[in-house]
Each structure stands twice: as C-alpha cells, then as structure tokens.
C-alpha cells in the first residue's frame, strides 16, 4: 500500500548512472571519426617525444648534460619526423565502415628506412671525422664497433664519462630506437599507454649504466611518468571528467613527490644494483719512476720551474702528486690502478667527507712546465678535473691520483677542483686507526728468510717515542714531533729510503730530506700498527701575482699520511722547517686551527681514557635521533604513517572476508538467513544503494530487482519477506532456507562483481574499513 499523502512513500527508481564505456555524445560521422582519430594520433607524437627525451635524459648520470643534449635532440626529433612521414598517416584511407584505414605503408619499410636513417645520421654527426664529414662505410663500421664496445667501456669508466663519440653512440642509438618504435606504436595503434613502453625499456640503459654516476635518476623518472600521463590524456578516447581530474591529479602528483623523496630513504633498501661491479675494468698499472726517488733530483735543481697554479680563494696548501702505499724494504711504490674518467674523481671509499667534518672547495688551474712522469698534481684528493678536449684522463680510485697515462707535456693545462677537509679536533684525538692490513705491512724477513734486524730496531724506537700514549692519533703526532725535533732537514742529504738508509738516518745521520723524514715516519708508524702511506708533492710555491703561484723544484715535499677510521687519510708533517721554507703558505702554517689544536693537545699528558666516538656520534644531529640507532624523526614519521597505511590496507582487505565468513557460518539458520541478507545489502551498496542502514528489506529487494535483474533479482522480494518474518515475526527458518538464501547471495555477488570495476571495488574496500562517521541525511532508496 502506498500513499498519496504529502509524504512521498519512497519509490524505487533507477539512480545508478549508465556506465560510460564509449565516447560520450552522439555517434559521429565516419569522416569525423577518422579525422578525430588522426588528430589524436598526431598529437600523441608530442608526448612520445617527451617520453623519449625523458628516457634519454636518464643518461645525464652517464654523460655531462652539455654534451648529451645535442645527441638527444637529434635522436628524438629525427625518428619522430621520419615515422610520421613514412607511416603515411597523413594519407590514411578510411574504410567503407568509416573506421580508420590501414596505414598506406606496412611496417617493414618504415623499420628499414629508420635503420638506414640512423646509420646516415650517426655517420654524418658523431663519426663525421672518420669519413671527412660524409656518411660512409668507414664511419658506419666505426659507429657499429663503438656501439658494441660502448656498454663495457661505460661500465669501466668513472662517471660522468667523457663525451666521446665512441661512447655517445650508445644513448644515440638507444633513444633513436626507442623513439622510432614508440612513434610507430603511437601512429599505428590505439592503446593509450602502449607507446610509452619503448621509452620505459630504454630508461633501463641509463639506470644500469649510471648507477654510480653523479646526480639522481628521479628527475628523469618523474619526467617519464609525467610524459606517460600526458600520453594517456592525449590518446584516451574517453572523455575524462575534468573536475575529478582536477582533484585527483594534484593528489597523485603530491603522492608521487612524497614517494620520490622518501623512496630512496626507506629502510631495507640496499644500494642499487651496480653492474659495473661485475665488469672487469681495463685497469692500467702505471709504469713510472717513483716520485719519491726524484725528490733529491728536484731539490738539486731547485730553481727549475715545475708548474704554475692559478687558484681561487684562500692560499693553497700542498699539492699532492703521487701517493706511495707499498713498501718492500727498499723503495716506496704505488699500488694504483688507473681507471679512465671523464673528469669526476669518486669519493674515497669508506669515508664521507661531509660527515667527517667541514670541507673547503678549492679550484686550481695548473699549467705544467716541467713535470716528469705521468702524474698530475692537485690539492689533496680532487673531486673533479677538467682537461683539454681529447685528453685521456685516468684516476686511481683508491688514492685519487690523476694521470694522463703518458708523460705530461710542457704547457699542458688543466683545472682541478678539490674539497679540502677541515678536521674535527675532538674526533681526530680519539679516532681509531683504520683496519687496513695492506697499509700496515712491513717486510720483516729478507730474501733468505732471515729476520731483518732493522725492523726490530724501528719497532723499539717507535715504542720508546710513543710511550705513554694511548690513542692512535696521539702516537702519530708524537712521532712527527719527535722526528721534527730530533733531526735536521738537509736538502743536500743523500737520497734513499731503504731500511738501511732509514736506520742510518735515525741512528747516526740525523740529517735528511723530506724523503727520509716521511719514509721514516711511515715505517715507524707501521710498526705501531698505524696504516700509513707516503705522499709526494709540492709546497704552494712562490706567489707571482694575484692568485698565481710558481712551483719550483725546491718546493718538492714528501709527507706521510695515516688513515683513521671514519676520517680517512690525515697528513702529518715530520719534516722540520716546512713552514720556514714554504713561507706563509707552507703546509703546517696552512693547517686549520682545529688541526693544530688537536696536535697541541695530543702532546699533553694522556687524558683519562675516553671511548672513541663513532662517526655517527661525531656527526651533527640531523633529526634528533642520531647515535641511538633509531632513524631520524623525518624518516620515522613517514615510516610510521606508511606502516599504519599498510596495516589499514591489510585490515581493509581482511575485514570483508572475515565478515562474510561470520555471516555464512552463523550459529543457526536464522543467523545465516539474516547474514545472507546483510551480505546482499552490502553488495547492493556497490551499485548505488545508499549505505544508510535505513532501508527496509522490501526496499532493498526492490532496488536489487531493478538493478540486478535476472533470476536472483526476481527472488529478492521473497527473500526479503523471509527476512522480515525471521526478524520481526519470530519465524524459525530451516537450514534449507538458509542455504537457498546464501545461494541467492552468491549469485547476486557474482553479478555485482562483474559490473563493478576492480578499482571501484578496491576503493570501496578501503573505505569500508574506516571508522564510520555519524550518518547525516541521505537520500531515500531509489
């Protein structure tokens, strides 16, 4: 019975909107459809170009961007223009049915011409010097050979790699191929996102090759994602709801931004897989006279101009030429392995200069005048070097030494940028010696297997000098002070740093050059277990103008360096008179005040034993949780939110299954019937039934019959009557009735599941687990 009173009894009308499965609006004429389709495909070439560009820009971690961009421009634009013309899109023929016609050209000519075009372009651009500017077989062979060798060469080069044609050919080919395939897909298919696939696959090349490169891949990845979204927008044949997009796109962008920022910091994520760790680099062992053997020669020709330096900023410190870390009892040599580089010098492994203390960046331009050997001087360990175009530059990743691989010609000019550390005095004072057995080793037996007596005497001397000290740094300072105070610098002293020479120097001679002082320090320190090496270089030289310094032979200097855990290699200066000889820019005078204070305090009586501070303890607090083993606050909060979100998602996924199981396995038939009905009610909410809980069983049944239809829809009113009788009339159903109710429920769920998109169901699932707010006024069931 319904009423005609002012109160409208709820009527059940359809309110579920028709699903939009096609193009909105009236059917279009065939010509219009073809025209629209053609326009959409043409416009989609723009996001395809953006996709390829973003993918190619991933190579910015592999090559300097300035050298990469021109290559990318050609590799992106040329194949797109070519594919657009070759595909015959502009002359697409409509079929009788009005659909877009087949391309006038099949795929194979397009693919063939694209390959030919690449060969011509790469011969005429990157390899134009091989065949005098004209495409030719020689250039093509060179390009092909370089393309095959480029992956391995890039994996064995310190990034960023030099912008050489032999290496740039790889991004050129990869981006060209990806662009060509993507353009063909964009022009020949209707799938909205498919043309993004080649660019995504191509992005794998820079990801793998640039794993160790400078910068980050996230900008390129973000651009790739953005271009893909643009591609979908352009190619989608469904009219997108702009208002919904306006709300969701910023949210999606914000979510992507948060994921981009926090993603790299998630715990449990290891270092990215670096394929170059598995590639064997063509390491070159330097064949050159040890610079330490040349110290005496430089001192004898003290006026000889070695190189000039034009420096920016403050007065420069010492220039390091070579580092010698192997001692065989006769001579100090280098264990360096040279690796090609485009100019970047990687950080010293196991040391974070930013964490170890403040750094000062210094840029110096060197002009070599007379410098024997293959090494290039630079202040401390350089971070990057710029050399003239065409110069092959190598670096020893362990020590940071630079080399051209061949004798350095006179007039050779380069620019080195260094980050000079400013040591933390407190940290140095209690720093532990690094674990580096190779840099502690001393040959203890001779060729005949007999113990070398010198070693014992060195050990005795070192122990005596450092008696009363407890900290490694204190021992090193004590050694340097002792050498400086006990022995005299004599530029004319005999060269040599064999065991016997050093024993003579320490026991009888008392005079020597920095060669003997540094070598003696290194040997004595190694007997104390301190990892030590000898550096050979030059003092700052003589100032000749504003920011210009002339370094001569007499400025040569050798000094020892000791490696401390978490700090790295720290130079010591046991040679007396370094400051007097070097003038105001001499090494010890240029020492930071902090370091000098550490040295002074280290010579004081030993303070009570203090546990050495770990690098984490010494590092400035960044989030308030440093030193406790906990991640910082800025990471903890997002992590906690992430965990909560994950737990919520799992709960939301579990809840419906648990609820359904509870309903289906109720204690008796009555509960099972009512459970089936509640399950039906929940499912109907997915297709438009307002989830107010204020609907009667017959209202729900009428809604279900209208919107679900079929056999199960027709059975719902009877089931609603049963539910009413069970709930309000005390009817006791039998188990057959309960089984029938659940059979209807299963059928209805199957129907609803087929109608509701997965995404919508997932969103409803997530929302359904949220705490229910107090319901406001809702529309009646229609």
């Amino acid at each position, binding site marked *: *019975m*319904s*009423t*005609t*009173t*002012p*109160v*409208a*009894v*709820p009527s059940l009308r359809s309110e579920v909107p028709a699903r939009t499965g096609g193009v909105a609006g009236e059917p279009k004429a065939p010509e219009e459809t073809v025209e629209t389709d053609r326009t959409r495909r043409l416009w989609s070439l723009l996001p395809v170009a953006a996709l390829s560009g973003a993918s190619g820009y991933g190579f910015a971690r592999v090559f300097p961007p300035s050298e990469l961009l021109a290559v990318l421009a050609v590799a992106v634009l040329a194949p797109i223009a070519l594919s657009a013309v070759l595909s015959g899109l502009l002359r697409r023929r409509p079929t009788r049915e009005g659909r877009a016609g087949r391309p006038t050209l099949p795929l194979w000519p397009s693919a063939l011409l694209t390959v030919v075009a690449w060969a011509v372009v790469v011969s005429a651009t990157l390899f134009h010097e091989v065949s005098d500017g004209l495409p030719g077989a020689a250039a093509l062979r060179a390009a092909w050979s370089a393309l095959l060798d480029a992956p391995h060469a890039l994996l064995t080069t310190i990034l960023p790699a030099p912008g050489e044609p032999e290496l740039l050919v790889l991004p050129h080919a990869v981006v060209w191929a990806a662009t060509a395939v993507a353009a063909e897909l964009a022009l020949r298919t209707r799938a909205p996102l498919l043309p993004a696939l080649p660019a995504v696959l191509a992005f794998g090349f820079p990801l793998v090759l640039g794993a160790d490169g400078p910068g980050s891949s996230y900008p390129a990845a973000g651009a790739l994602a953005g271009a893909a979204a643009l591609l979908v927008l352009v190619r989608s044949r469904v009219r997108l709801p702009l208002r919904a997009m306006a709300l969701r796109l910023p949210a999606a962008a914000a979510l992507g931004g948060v994921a981009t920022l926090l993603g790299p910091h998630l715990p449990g994520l290891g270092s990215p897989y670096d394929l170059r760790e598995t590639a064997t680099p063509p390491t070159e062992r330097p064949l050159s006279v040890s610079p330490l053997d040349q110290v005496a020669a430089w001192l004898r020709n003290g006026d000889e101009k070695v190189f000039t330096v034009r420096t920016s900023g403050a007065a420069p410190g010492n220039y390091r030429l070579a580092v010698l870390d192997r001692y065989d009892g006769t001579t100090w040599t280098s264990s360096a392995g040279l690796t090609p580089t485009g100019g970047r010098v990687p950080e010293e492994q196991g040391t974070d200069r930013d964490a170890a203390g403040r750094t000062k960046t210094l840029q110096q331009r060197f002009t070599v005048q007379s410098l024997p050997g293959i090494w290039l001087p630079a202040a401390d360990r350089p971070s990057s070097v710029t050399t003239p175009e065409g110069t092959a530059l190598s670096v020893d990743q362990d020590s940071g030494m630079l080399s051209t691989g061949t004798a350095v010609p006179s007039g050779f000019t380069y620019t080195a940028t260094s980050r000079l550390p400013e040591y933390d005095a407190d940290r140095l004072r209690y720093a532990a010696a690094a674990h580096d057995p190779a840099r502690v080793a001393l040959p203890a037996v001779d060729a005949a297997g007999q113990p070398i007596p010198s070693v014992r005497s060195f050990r005795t001397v070192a122990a005596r000098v450092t008696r009363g000290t407890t900290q490694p740094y204190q021992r090193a300072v004590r050694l340097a002070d002792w050498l400086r105070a006990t022995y005299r610098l004599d530029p004319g002293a005999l060269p040599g740093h064999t065991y016997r020479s050093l024993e003579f120097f320490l026991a009888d001679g008392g005079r020597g050059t920095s060669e003997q002082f540094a070598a003696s320090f290194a040997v004595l320190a190694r007997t104390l277990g301190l990892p030590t090496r000898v550096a050979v270089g030059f003092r700052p030289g003589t100032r000749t103008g504003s920011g210009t310094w002339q370094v001569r032979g007499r400025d040569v200097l050798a000094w020892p360096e000791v490696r401390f855990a978490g700090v790295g290699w720290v130079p010591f200066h046991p040679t007396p008179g370094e400051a007097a000889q070097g003038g105001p820019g001499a090494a010890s005078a240029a020492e930071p005040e902090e370091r000098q204070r550490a040295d002074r305090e280290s010579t004081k009586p030993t303070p009570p034993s203090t546990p050495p501070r770990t690098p984490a303890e010494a590092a400035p607090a960044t989030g308030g949780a440093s030193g406790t083993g906990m991640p910082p606050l800025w990471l903890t909060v997002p992590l906690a939110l992430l965990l909560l979100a994950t737990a919520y998602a799992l709960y939301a996924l579990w809840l419906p299954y648990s*609820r359904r199981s*509870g*309903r289906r396995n*109720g204690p008796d038939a*009555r*509960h099972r019937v*009512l*459970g089936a009905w*509640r399950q039906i009610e929940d499912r109907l909410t997915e297709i438009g039934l*307002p989830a*107010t*809980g*204020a*609907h*009667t*069983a*017959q*209202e729900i049944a009428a809604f279900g019959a209208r919107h679900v239809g079929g056999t199960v829809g027709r059975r719902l009113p009877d089931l609603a009557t049963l539910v*009413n*009788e*069970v*709930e*309000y*009339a*005390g*009817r*006791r159903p039998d188990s057959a009735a309960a089984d029938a109710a659940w059979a209807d429920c299963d059928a209805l769920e199957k129907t609803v599941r087929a109608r509701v998109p997965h995404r919508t169901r997932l969103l409803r699932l997530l929302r359904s687990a949220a705490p229910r707010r107090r*319901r*406001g*006024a*809702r*529309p*009646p069931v229609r």
Partner: protein
Amino acid sequence: MTPPPTDGTARLAKCFHALADNVERVVKGKRDTIELALTCLFAEGHLLVEDVPGTGKTTLARCLAASIEAEFARVQFTPDLLPSDITGVTVYRQNTGVFEFLPGPVFANIVLGDEINRASPKTQSALLEVMEERRVTADGTTHPVPRPFMVLATQNSVDMGGTYPLPEAQLDRFLMRITVGYPDHTSEVSVLKETGADPESLAPVATAQEIAELIALAAAEVQVADALYDYIVRVVAATRAVPDVRLGASPRGSVALLRAVRVRAASQSRPYAFPEDVKALAGPVLAHRLILTPEAELSGRSGADVIEEVLATVELNSGARL
C-alpha cells in the same frame, strides 16, 4: 514456517478490502487514499483530509459512511456555527418540567466535519473532548458517543481567507492527515463516464458492531517485535532533533503510529508488523504533528519533507544487524 494469519486478522483483512472495494466504486483511482482512511477507521482514529476543492474529500467521507451500516452525521462548518450546534443542547421541557439533553450531530459513528477550518476556534475546540475522550459533557452530565467513532474532517488548502487554522492541540487529535489529490487521466475519464455513481447508491458491506469488534481484534492479535517498538520510538524521537523542527512529534504520535501500523499489518492478513508498515504510515501519521521553524516554513519545507528525511536517516538497528 511462516506464522499463519489469525482469525481476527483474516476477518479484518476481508472486511477492510470489502470496504475499500465498495468505496472505490465511486472514488476512482484513489485506492491508497481509501486504504489510509480505512486504516484510520480500524485504528479508531480521526482523519483530516486536506486538499483543494473538487478532489473528492466529501465524497470519500460519504462513501465511507455509506459503506458501513452506522450512524452518519455531517456538519458544515461555518463562522457562525456554535459549539452547541455540534455537541448538542440542553432544553427545558415544560410538559415534564425537566431539562433534557438533545444530542448534536457529533453523536454518530462517522461524523463528517466539512471545511472545519471555517468555524471559529471556539467551535473547533468543542470537538477536542469528544475526539479524544469520545464523550460529551453538558451541564455536568457526560454523554458517551457511539462506537466506533470517527471524525472525518475536511479543509481546503487554498482560499484561506476568513478561515481559522486548526490549533496544534487539535491537529494532534487527528490520527492522520492525508490529501486526496487529482485522479490520473484514466480514473478521471472513468469518473466522467459514471456520473451517476453516487455515495448513496452504495450498499453497506459492514456494520458498526462488526467494525467495533475488528478494531479490538487488530489491537490484540497483531504482534509487534521489540525491534519495531524501538524503531518507532527512534523515528518519532528523531523528529524532535531536526533543526528545522520547532516542536517534534509527541508520544501521542508514537501511540498513533503504532495503532495504524497494527491495522496495516492486519489488513494484509499479517499477525505481525514490519518496518515497511512504519515507513508507509509515518508520513500521514506524524507530518501534521510537527511545527516547523519560521525559517523552514519560509524556505518551503514541510512536515512531510522532515519525515522523509528522518526515515532515510534512522537506521533499522535491529539486533540482527550482523
């Protein structure tokens, strides 16, 4: 197993539909309105029919009266109508030397108060006692009205000049307020074709005594689950919490709704009531009992809108909600 209909509910349903069919022979296409009026009759409540002129308000009342073998009285309310014109008057009999009470038209089983809002408030209020207590007190003597007793009042919703709107207290005495509405096209054509159909042509299909028995049976035999009592109370209580309502429905409204729900269930041969009964009757039973705020009235909201909103909001929070 489905609970079978009881004897009382079966008899009521049979009588209910016989009456409805009989009335529908004259009042075409208004089955729902007829059934609401009958629900009101079997709930022994009073009915206020409000609509524009010419929609069949009076005809409905006359058909109802003609279908029942009972006393029927009609009062045409006018501004000069006195209370005694309704309830009766006491006169002095010279021949016997005693005062005698002459019953007014209210002493009938079905009283049609036509255009009730045209009478003065004093006269309108004369109906208060008899509608609620079913008796008239005159000169200290109480005179009960016959049972069943039903006041069937009509009033126009237009042409309000010179009328006296019923006060809230009197509106609350009516079990339902309904509108007849215009008939649909087919029904109106049928009305034109059968112009000879007259309420007086209807034969009675039930007696007043039978109606009185069925009223008692409906109240006794229709069971109402606790969950439904709870639902009725929550619906009525919700009308008091709506911001647009200055005064919500009273407990008298809950009782009235329950009575109507029982009759509706019995009219469908059900010895038990369902939430559907509550939803179907909440509007006619409760809407006229609400007093809206002036702002709500100015914005065009009505009591019916509020009831619809309440029904769409209040959960059927039965214990079986799993």
